[in-house]
């Protein structure tokens, strides 16, 4: 039996066999292509945050074209990419807040351009979970119109509001004298009054 000659394949059988080999080669090459692409992508994708990260070489809109690991960009989103389903927030250092009434030289940046507000001084306080910065002064276009610009940030939701309140009097720039719970003691060139941060009203 061992020495018996093998049956000779017909040309049609040989043709079919070669087609199978070619098909397998095709699949192999495609798989190599996929493997190389994914390998290169992973090598370039550590997930750490580092100060030493090199600057991008060119401003070529580098954010385009990289597919997310979990879902294509056109898939329904809100699906967290991590296994746990929760983000790992980076640490934030505790921040001592400077509360009180400050001159311009110490109160920090202004969220209002000089074309709108001529500032006199600044107050900062917190009511419940809302951090409040108040910028007192007058309208740049009308120095007799006293105004308060109030920036509020809800520290829970992160939402900010910035509003401007004009004094009903026209006696010049406002100055903040003191913080009294939820009220600011203020003055203009002629009187002393209050601004209630709970109701956003002036009391002269």
């Amino acid at each position, binding site marked *: 039996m061992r020495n018996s000659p093998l049956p000779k394949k017909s040309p049609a059988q040989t043709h079919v066999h*070669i087609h199978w080999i*070619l*098909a397998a080669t*095709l699949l192999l090459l495609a798989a190599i*292509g*996929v493997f190389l*692409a994914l390998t*290169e*992508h992973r090598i370039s*994708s*550590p997930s*750490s*945050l*580092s*100060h030493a*990260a*090199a*600057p*991008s070489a*060119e*401003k*070529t*809109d580098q*954010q385009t*074209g*990289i*597919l997310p*690991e979990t879902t294509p*960009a056109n898939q329904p*989103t809100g699906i967290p*990419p991590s296994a746990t389903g929760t*983000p*790992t*927030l*980076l*640490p*934030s250092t505790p*921040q001592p*807040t*400077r*509360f009180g009434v400050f001159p311009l030289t110490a*109160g*920090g*940046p*202004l*969220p209002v*351009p*000089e074309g*709108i507000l001529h500032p006199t001084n600044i107050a*900062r306080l917190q009511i419940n979970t809302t951090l409040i*910065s108040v910028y007192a002064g007058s309208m740049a276009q009308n120095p007799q119109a006293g105004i308060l610009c109030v920036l509020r*940030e809800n*520290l*829970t939701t*992160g*939402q*900010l*509001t*910035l509003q*401007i309140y004009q004094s009903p009097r026209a006696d010049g720039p406002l100055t903040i004298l003191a913080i009294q719970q939820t009220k600011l003691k203020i003055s203009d060139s002629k009187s002393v009054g209050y601004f209630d941060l709970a109701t956003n009203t002036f009391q002269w």
Partner: protein
Amino acid sequence: MHLKRTSSFLVVLALALSIVVGRMLLPASATRAATTNTGTAKGRLQLLPRPMHPLHSSALLQTKAWSSVPTPTSLYEATTNARTMYAQGCNAAHGAPGLLILDWGQPVYVGYGQYGTYDFGGHDDSDTAILHAVANFAQGVWYCRTRSTNIALAIGESNYYSGNALPLTAAAWYADGQQWGRMVNAVQSFVVNNHYNTVIGIYGAGDLETGWENFTLTSSLVNGYNSVSSRIYFDFGDDAPGHWTNYQVWYVAYGARDNLPIPEIYFNADATYDWQVLNLWACSHAGGPMYIRGVMATFIGNTPAQAWSAMYRATASNACTARTLPWFTFSTYIV
């Protein structure tokens, strides 16, 4: 013969298939030719992670329809708290697509060779703290993303000065700009490495106001940034007359290597008498117009629609500046 031809065809097909699949999976940046950063090229950069919906780009320019210009909210930051920042990012993900700026306030020197800002909540924030804060914002964007989330996020500080926040030397402002640029690079790397960059891209920004500090210090800040980062730097400041020359305002808004203007158009005069006049100056003295990519509105004066329309009309009023209008696509409202 037939077999040989078939096998050759299949091999070629396989190679072509592997190349196509490979290109589809590789980052686009790895296969794209480098582009230059200067002049017209930077003015026409695609800055969002994905092109805007046609309704939000060229169509609006043909129809001049304000209603199709999305207006995300920019923020005067008052804390670096992780959960607050995450919540803000989550809000942004559900908001309008486009450019938004996180303004961290005035520059300060925090000691030991480190710079940072004095934020709007009364805190000194080191650049490292801001880096973590913006990374948390980006995580909020990613985890709350929707189909339409598409954000160019610029991390901004101002050229406002008070107290002894920062030495008044060009060297100190240059070093501050450098550290800011490295921080922007690091956040962008974080975004890319975590594959958030299909929904968010990171840039630098400055509320560079002519009345706040002089050109020497402000340009040092900008030059320091550009010396270490090639991410676009948006000037969202003003062009208030009487402080700087045209060249100086142009330089920090557009002339510096990676800078693009997003001017404050709080009143119509800001568009017609300040920025358009400057842009005409650029046409005749700086080799071409500035590509004003969008405008900023705030709680007083113009609404976002009014601000955008005012700048659009002013830019369209002259042939030299009008050719930049196809790239005038951003509007943001800061609060």
